[in-house]
């Protein structure tokens, strides 16, 4: 039975992430403190909430350094939603705040648009199909995203990122919103695979199988 580590820093719907992996037959270990991060199993960083609060909690619980060490040691890390955003260099919610800095880039608020023809609300919520750009070396779960829908609910997006890292995105008017980011063994999903029904569960299954 595959062991999955889920970082529980008190923000977001941890139970759903846990149940999704358990549904797939994995054993889930919830870790609240840095000492719990080993190099033995893939690490999932979930999260819904505010960037500065999240970084504060990760820091207070001694999680930031071990996560950096895990990344250096090629432990697969999957950040979901806010968890993906935290992987980057800095966030701009409320105030400028450093992130885990495992990936270069920043996190910025998207804009609302109130004109009649191009109206866009925030948070950006919906089951979106993504555009996918893969290379032969990519894990199968990248290609498998095509034509499936995944659930998004977010007001912030990742920006200033090396385009090569962006494997999937969705369009919000003219803006390409990064949805799946990969660099080495660090993965970020802006969508919620644990909330995307059967397609989401299959994505997680494929991720687990690949790691």
């Amino acid at each position: 039975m595959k062991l999955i580590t889920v970082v529980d820093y008190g923000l977001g719907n941890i139970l759903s992430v846990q149940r999704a992996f358990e549904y797939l037959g994995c054993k889930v270990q919830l870790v609240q403190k840095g000492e719990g991060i080993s190099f033995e199993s893939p690490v999932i960083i979930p999260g819904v909430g505010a960037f500065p609060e999240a970084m504060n909690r990760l820091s207070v619980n001694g999680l930031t350094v071990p996560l950096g060490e895990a990344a250096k040691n090629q432990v697969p890390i999957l950040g979901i939603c806010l968890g993906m955003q935290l992987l980057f260099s800095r966030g701009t919610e409320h105030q400028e705040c450093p992130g885990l800095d495992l990936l270069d880039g920043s996190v910025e608020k998207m804009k609302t648009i109130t004109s009649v023809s191009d109206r866009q609300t925030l948070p950006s919520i919906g089951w979106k199909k993504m555009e996918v750009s893969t290379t032969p070396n990519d894990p199968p779960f990248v290609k498998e995203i095509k034509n499936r829908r995944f659930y998004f609910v977010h007001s912030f997006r990742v920006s200033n990122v090396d385009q090569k890292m962006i494997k999937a995105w969705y369009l919000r008017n003219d803006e390409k919103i990064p949805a799946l980011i990969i660099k080495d063994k660090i993965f970020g999903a802006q969508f919620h695979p644990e909330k995307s029904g059967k397609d989401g569960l299959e994505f997680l299954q494929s991720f687990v199988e690949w790691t």
Partner: protein
Amino acid sequence: MLKRSVRMIARLDVKNENVINTIQLEGLRVVGSPNSLATKYYHDGIDEILLIDQVASLYQRGHLLDLTKQFADNVFIPITAGGGIGSVDEARSLLRAGADKVAVNTQAIKNPNLISDLANEFGTQCIVASIQAKSTSENDWEAFTDGGRERTGVDAVQWAKQAAELGAGELLITSIDRDGTRKGFDVDLMAKISSIVSVPVIASGGFGKPDDAKSIFENTYCEAIAIADFLHMSRGSVPEVKEALINSGLDFRD
């Protein structure tokens, strides 16, 4: 131009351990177990589940946590839960029990800062301001609380705008007049509110036939609809509702 994304939400109003059907928010028949209905709708392709404990303002709310936890075992789509939530701690318990979003109504009207407190703690995407509105004249609606029982004297449309400004990430607008009548949504109410806020609006109350979905999206900026008795009473299915949106120019999960 991109198509607008819209969502179909199954609304379960519960009293103790049962889903009830309401007409103008008066609870009537017991129609089934929340978990079995939610699971069925999940497998039928519904986009989200809304779980509201209608009597939580009057009585205790332990059931809401239990039900939410049950859903987390087999329903892998977003769950919004609410009923009597009045503090950050109560919201935290609900989120940790498996809810993705928390809906607040009564306590938020009594203390509007609840919305901003919750948004600051959990993020706007976790907070749904639930507003029950009853028409008082042709273009005015009053907000009600406590499961539609108590008048507030507050203008529902203005309150909706304020709730969004305070940090609600979504507005769930229920027409008390239309609830349970199957006569279609209160399009005027929904059009008014959805045009003055820049957060997603969910229309609730009155869904009677699949065409009501098309009509609300065509005539308002609503991004989601809540469907209750149409599903609970098996008058139709989730696929039938979605079928009505084919060729509508809308983006939805089929």
